[in-house]
């Protein structure tokens, strides 16, 4: 039953809908604009004379004969060997997520089931570690890594990213396992399982929703990292994000800034897909800990 006040057009409702509309425009437009512009030449995407050049591709038509060109992508992926960085990112992200989840699941499960004082203090320490700016940690790594000769290689970076990931992973999986009824593994142990067997046969089959959500955030952290990867990887082992930053250093020549634009669009596509397919998990992950207290 709609009351009169609900039917009346409410100025507040109009304002709030308009605000949402404006926000959507601000949120989406930069991505659409950059995606569109990445298929143009520099003279169009960075057009001082008329921004509409970027829409119709006046210079692009003049230079390449068609309104769209893949030359920026060709330059970045083939000429500048961006695929190399993409492969490195793949390796780093894959192993970071796998290792991080494996050791994080064990730790998070134990923390959720322990209930002892030291478990609480470990969680508090993890909270402090989570707040550390990554660059401050990096400044502690460099000297020892140079000394031991393990600077610049992918395994070092993977281990460091796993460690930086742990506090967050532990907290998320800890709160996930708190919601898995204690009786499940306890009854398995009454039936004669050891703690590890109970974990293996009872907990592992039911833990996947929590693990997938946590894995998404591990993925994002490893994929989006700039501070660690830019400082700890040598040039030939660079991943995508530091590679983009290095494009900027060398792209003073006409046309080359478009390589960076193409690289940026390429690096955004996987994230776009991730949000598209896992929106529900990402939202639930962002709100755990917040809504439940």
């Amino acid at each position, binding site marked *: 039953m709609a009351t009169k006040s609900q039917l009346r057009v409410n100025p507040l409702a109009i304002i709030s809908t308009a605000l949402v509309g404006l926000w959507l425009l601000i949120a989406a437009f930069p991505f659409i604009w950059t995606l569109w512009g990445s298929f143009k030449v520099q003279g169009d995407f960075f057009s001082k004379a008329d921004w509409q050049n970027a829409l119709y591709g006046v210079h692009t038509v003049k230079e390449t004969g068609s309104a769209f060109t893949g030359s920026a992508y060709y330059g970045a992926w083939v000429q500048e060997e961006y695929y190399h960085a993409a492969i490195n990112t793949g390796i780093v992200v894959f192993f970071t997520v796998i290792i991080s989840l494996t050791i994080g699941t064990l730790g998070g499960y134990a923390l959720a089931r322990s209930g002892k004082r030291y478990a609480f203090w470990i969680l508090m320490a993890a909270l*402090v570690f989570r707040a550390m700016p990554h660059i401050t*940690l990096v400044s*502690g790594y460099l000297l020892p890594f140079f000394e031991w000769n393990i600077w610049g290689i992918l395994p070092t970076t993977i281990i460091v990213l796993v460690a930086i990931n742990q506090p967050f992973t532990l907290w998320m999986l800890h709160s996930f396992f708190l919601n898995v009824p204690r009786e499940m593994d306890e009854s398995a142990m009454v039936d004669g399982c050891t703690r590890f067997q109970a974990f293996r046969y009872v907990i592992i089959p039911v833990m996947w929703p929590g693990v997938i959500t946590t894995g998404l955030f591990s993925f994002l952290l490893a994929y989006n990292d700039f501070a660690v990867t830019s400082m700890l990887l040598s040039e030939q082992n660079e991943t995508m*994000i530091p590679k983009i930053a290095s494009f900027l250093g060398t792209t003073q020549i006409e046309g080359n800034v478009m390589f960076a634009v193409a690289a940026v669009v390429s690096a955004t596509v996987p994230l*776009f897909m991730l949000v598209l397919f896992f*929106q529900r998990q990402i939202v639930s992950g962002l709100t755990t800990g917040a809504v439940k207290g």
Partner: protein
Amino acid sequence: MQHRVFFWFTLPTLTAMVLFIALPIVSVFVQSLHIDHERVIVISESCGPFGCTQTTSVDTEANKKLREEKPLGRYNGLATYTNRSHLAFKEIGIAWSSTKNWSQFFSKALNLPFYKALAFTLTYTLVVTPFVLVLGLAIAVGVNNLSNRIKGPTIFVSLLPMMVTPLVGSLILFWMVDGDGIIGATLQLLFDDSSLSLKASPTLTWMMLIVYGIWHILPFSFIVFYAGLQTVPSETLEAAMIDGASKWQRVIYVIVPHLMPLVVFVTLILLMDNFRVFEPIVGFSAEAHAQSLSWIIFKDLRESANPLYGSAGATSMMTIIGVAILLTPVLIRTKRDFKQRSV
């Protein structure tokens, strides 16, 4: 759970955290107490037909050897903390005694690198956080009133600015506000000033970074508040409506109090995350006018050929202290929650 079992379950994760988070903090502290070796100078005398001349030169060979033997450098105590590029006690003292009023003093103090970075970091944190809280709540209320069919796509689009890599996000915006980009060129046209550049003035640079910061982190507060709105009890809302509360009054007196715990949570997370601001300065190449604490550490470590580990270490330690201060309320709150849960 038995102690022994607990130990084996948590061993890998604890090892990783101790080795790569706890020990590096110690290592940063040790580094901050050391400074690079003094140059080994050799004086050589060369005698020619017109008498002897003495030349001094740096003995690179000996220098290299010294550095290999003691990579940390020589012990310097707390001197790095108090030197010109950090707390700058001496310069602050001079500025204090030589200036007459506060504004003169501040303008002098804010020319010192550490205070400059601290000023930007704090301004960024304290401006972005309230904006994000208010706008996030407003958008969450707006989205909550939309019809169910468009809620999903709306949330999808809203998530993008946060999910995108910070460096990539700042570059995308930077290209748009560039002098030749769509927003930059339009602004030049509007103000009829072809030299107008957001990068040229400190104020505009700061505003640009703050706008980016809001754009980037707004989705977080929006999502948390939106999830909170789903849990507002409908009975209370109906009761307020029966009592004649307008829509606005319902937001202020029912919804906001219900979301208050979330507001505290979001504020704390935002303060911590914004305090680390780093990538946008690289993305916007804004270092000429805006430097953050994280950025000056990065710069010290990037110092070509000869990274300033001591200097980076000292800044890192002070940043960690800053984070610890911001973190205290979070820790107190978490501790209270745990006590409540165990009761």
